[in-house]
């Protein structure tokens, strides 16, 4: 039981900065119990303590108060409007009945998870020239000891006092004026706060990196480049390009952790510019489009696996790493934009299997060896068609795993593109993704749908069921021991499916697109399900529906979170 006590009612008004922050009622979390390493590795069933609840990124909750028989009775308990100045891609953390909520543009709030009452808010002073718009997503935060850890769109990693929201330390890791920013939050492993940076697409005398900071002090312990350096291991995979023209390998999705192997797993994005013909090398471009296995204590790169060597169509695999033991073999599952499910041995990085869902037409992948053969590669100024579009079939909307069905539940959008890739200047400050003249069109196999929620048996590779929606599926998935899997779409619907059959057991409609990472938790012994809603972000939610199904409209604002539960017994 959490007791909130109002400590004081301080008006956080900064002189000379009218309107910067609203006067806020400051309270604090009382009876806070520091989160130990042991707790973090084995969270209580009612807590959502890591990005995807557990280190293995299953996105699965063992709670079963809400089940397939009663989920139809879910009703709204509370909702909360969130910061409107950036993209909504939030994952709430829940610990001991408190929800720690990452808002866009670095705002973090602590709310009573049962009532939605605000306890504290961290709202950094904002540069009046701060860039707003699609950027500023804060996918997740982390908790450890007595601190909340966040990453900012100004390339800082910060630690807040979990009781009060006061800043404990603030470490800048890169220069945001060069484009560097964070959109994915950190994880904490053995006292090290680990985060991967993004915004690495422009040519500069610096490259993308994963970094580990001391959780107590914010001091940087290590930094590992996600790009092979000239003269170093794998350095020749970029041809003779000097370091400043080796761009990309961003990390825009938070990693996973295997405490037994003591390895963290991080996905990297594609090389920049996207097309080989534009970036000036047809080499593999290590360590782009790879899964990296890194020692969290030292930053040592223990192994890597490059999913698409020399990727050239903007089809990155930089997404979530789901750790599942299959037949006693410790495996890592990953799906990128092509909707190919990769299975690796997570101790060695050895390839095990690839399952192509069959929608893409860009590569052939050998399911037994993982060898990739390109079927179509862009040449500058030459029009081509490809499925998917540069938006991908899969993006940051993470899959969830259910141990009951042995299936992954995959949020997708189906689409294709007529694309013509163009050139970019090879000068410092230039580069970037490279321009693409693009026109999206519907996928010929999608029967008019833009969204698909796909349940895939990971041992057989067979489709358990699929549910198509007119607009893209737009949240991560959430699996639960109640046999219910939750997901939301662009068209404001939130669904509860029977995980075994795909039957819709409950649905509701929000004020704007469901967008972010739904979670479930206990507060005062009762199970709640929270789903974020909102707008912004550069990928499919922004452009695909507007181009291909403009008759379906949603409000272009409304970042918020909605919390549902079963009615109390009368």
């Amino acid at each position, binding site marked *: 039981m959490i007791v909130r006590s109002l400590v004081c009612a301080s008006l956080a008004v900064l002189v000379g900065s009218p309107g910067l922050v609203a006067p806020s009622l400051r309270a604090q979390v009382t009876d806070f119990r520091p989160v130990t390493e042991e707790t973090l590795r084995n969270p209580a069933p009612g807590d959502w303590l890591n990005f995807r609840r557990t280190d293995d990124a299953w996105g699965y909750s063992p709670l079963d108060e809400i089940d397939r028989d009663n989920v139809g009775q879910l009703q709204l308990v509370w909702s909360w409007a969130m910061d409107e100045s950036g993209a909504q891609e939030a994952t709430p953390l829940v610990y001991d009945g408190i929800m720690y909520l990452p808002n866009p543009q670095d705002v973090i709030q602590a709310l009573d998870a049962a009532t939605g009452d605000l306890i504290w808010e961290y709202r950094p002073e904002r540069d009046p020239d701060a*860039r707003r718009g699609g950027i500023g997503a804060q996918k997740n935060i982390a908790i450890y000891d007595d601190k909340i850890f966040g990453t900012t769109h100004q390339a800082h990693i910060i630690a807040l006092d979990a009781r009060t929201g006061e800043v404990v330390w603030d470490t800048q890791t890169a220069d945001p004026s060069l484009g560097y920013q964070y959109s994915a939050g950190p994880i904490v492993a053995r006292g090290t706060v680990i985060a991967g940076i993004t915004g690495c697409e422009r040519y500069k005398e610096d490259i993308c990196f994963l970094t580990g900071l001391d959780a107590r002090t914010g001091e940087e312990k290590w930094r590992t480049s996600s790009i092979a350096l000239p003269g170093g291991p794998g350095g020749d995979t970029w041809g003779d390009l000097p370091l400043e023209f080796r761009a990309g390998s961003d990390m825009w999705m938070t990693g996973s952790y295997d405490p037994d192997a003591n390895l963290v797993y991080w996905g990297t994005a594609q090389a920049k510019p996207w097309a080989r013909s534009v970036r000036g090398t047809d080499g593999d471009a290590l360590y782009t489009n790879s899964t990296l296995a890194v020692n969290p204590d030292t930053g040592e790169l223990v192994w890597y696996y490059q999913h698409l060597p020399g990727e050239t169509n903007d089809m990155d695999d930089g997404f979530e790493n789901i750790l599942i033991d299959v037949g006693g073999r410790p495996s890592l599952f990953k799906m990128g934009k092509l909707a190919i499910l990769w299975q690796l041995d997570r101790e060695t990085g050895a390839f095990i299997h690839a399952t192509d869902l069959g929608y893409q037409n860009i590569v052939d992948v050998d399911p037994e060896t993982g060898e990739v053969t390109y079927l179509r590669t862009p040449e500058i100024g030459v029009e081509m068609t490809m499925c998917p579009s540069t938006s991908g079939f899969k993006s940051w909307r993470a899959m969830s795993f259910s141990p009951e069905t042995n299936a992954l539940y995959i949020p997708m959008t189906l689409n294709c593109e007529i694309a013509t890739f163009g050139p970019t200047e090879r000068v410092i400050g230039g580069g970037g993704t490279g321009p693409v003249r693009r026109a999206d069109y519907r996928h010929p196999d999608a029967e008019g749908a833009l969204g698909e929620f796909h349940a895939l048996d990971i041992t057989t590779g067979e489709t358990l069921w699929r549910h198509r929606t007119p607009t893209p599926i737009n949240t991560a998935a959430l699996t639960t021991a109640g046999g219910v899997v939750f997901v939301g779409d662009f068209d404001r619907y939130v669904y509860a499916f029977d995980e075994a059959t795909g039957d819709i057991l409950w649905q509701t409609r929000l004020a704007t697109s469901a967008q972010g990472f739904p979670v479930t938790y206990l507060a005062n012994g009762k199970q709640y399900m929270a789903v974020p809603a909102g707008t912004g972000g550069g990928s499919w939610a922004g452009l695909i529906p507007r181009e291909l199904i403009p008759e379906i409209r949603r409000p272009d604002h409304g970042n918020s979170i909605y919390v549902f539960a079963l009615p109390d017994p009368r």
Partner: protein
Amino acid sequence: MRLIPGPLLVIAISLVHPMTASGLQATQADGQRTVWDGVYTEEQAERGGVQYTESCAGCHAPDLRGSTTSPSLVGMSFTFLWGERTLGELFGKIQQLMPTDRPNSLPAQTYRNILAFILRANSYPPGDQGLEADGLDQIIISAKPEPRP
């Protein structure tokens, strides 16, 4: 399961890149202007710069060179994407799709100001008269000034 409405089955062929040689020849035959003819004012670009910072720089970067999610709006990238097309097309794209989280949320004049700012950033010369609602379809984004007799 929800049913997919019938009209959604139609493939959006109409979204295919609209540049056609015949359209271009028609406008040139009409003796229309290009972006080298001083089609915006310095003041308009100045206002557009402020509005760009507010609404566009988050994705396209303060120096217009783009980001992971958004193309560069200057130099080779701009020429590649918009060369030989009209300002009317570019204006339509910006107004209908930008900012991606709030498309068509700005006054038309603001979109024109931002367009002027983009033209200035690409070193097209300012003139005495600003971009107006009418006539954008008659202004060609040509990479180089037309040779003058």
